[in-house]
């Protein structure tokens, strides 16, 4: 009985993480806004900034990985490998989220010392959608941290709950 709820919990967590990562990718890809300033026209796209491109790629990798692990059979020997892969994926998620937040913060507040002006005043809808994508990325990260501890628990049984 413990094993069934354990496996079910792991599946639910992983499916939720898959949805969150996929949502982050979609939200960022569809963010695009054109703003006109007299005769100048500024088009803001996620691909203008390298950190956002990295965010999209990293979250796409994470969602594909989550989808594949959802279908891993229970008795497979690959579950021990899944623990290390989960750690690598979590590191990928933190790094992409952290880079995107750092660059988005410059876009929102600017950097007075470097002479960089904020761009969110001109393209507010773009900024809101980027914020939504970053929040989805954060949710995926938190779920993956839980999944990491969960994977270790189900592979190693460190609290010796299972009777052998």
């Amino acid at each position, binding site marked *: 009985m413990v094993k069934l709820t354990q496996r079910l919990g792991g599946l639910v967590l992983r499916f939720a993480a898959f949805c969150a990562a996929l949502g982050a990718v979609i939200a960022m890809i569809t963010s695009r806004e054109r703003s006109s300033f007299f005769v100048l026209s*500024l088009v*803001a*796209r996620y691909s*203008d*900034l*390298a*950190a956002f491109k*990295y965010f999209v790629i990293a979250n796409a990798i994470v969602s594909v990985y989550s989808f594949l692990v959802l279908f891993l059979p229970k008795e497979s020997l690959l579950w*021990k490998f899944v*623990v*290390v892969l989960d*750690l*690598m994926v*979590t*590191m*990928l998620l*933190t*790094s*992409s*989220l*952290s*880079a995107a*937040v*750092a*660059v988005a*913060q*410059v*876009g929102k507040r600017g*950097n007075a*010392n*470097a*002479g*960089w*002006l904020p*761009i969110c005043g001109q393209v507010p809808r773009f900024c809101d959608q980027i914020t939504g994508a970053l929040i989805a990325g954060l949710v995926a990260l938190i779920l993956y*941290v839980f999944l*990491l*501890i969960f994977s*270790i628990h189900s*592979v*190693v*049984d*460190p609290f010796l709950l299972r009777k052998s």
Partner: protein
Amino acid sequence: MPGEKILLAGGAIKSWKLLFGLRIFAFMATLVAAIVMSLNRETKTFVVATIGTIPIKATLTAKFQHTPAFVFFVIANVMVSFHNLLMIALQIFGRKLENKGFRLLSVAILDMLNATLISAAANAAAFMAELGKNGNKHAKWNKICDRFAIYCDHGAGALIAAFAGVILMLLISAVSISRILLNSK
């Protein structure tokens, strides 16, 4: 008792020397990254305008505190190097009690959390440095590395050390997890 046959003399588990060596390197790498980035500072005088024949000069300073990502970088590297120092001390002085209680599990979880922390810090600083080096013509942000070359060079050195720390922390986490697996067989 599980794990008895892979205990070395003195009570340590088999991969003790490997983990110890990796931790020493990770401690040094993250400490170097923190120190180099926190001492990163360059002051330069520029001619901003010329009135007639008199040039008007302004003194500008590039400090690491100007960028929040670099502040996070310094703090995270200090935290990870402190974690490695603590684990080294634990390994030296707690050599006999390695497989008692939750010690192996807590060391592995702490290693994993610190690995994610250092990867986040190194990556955020790397993308901000790329922004400073290349600028961004869509957002009309000028590059700053052509004027503050020494600042950029020191920052690049700190980043390289931090990325070495990222790889080392990943290896340390993998070894810590495999120690739990070895111990529970």
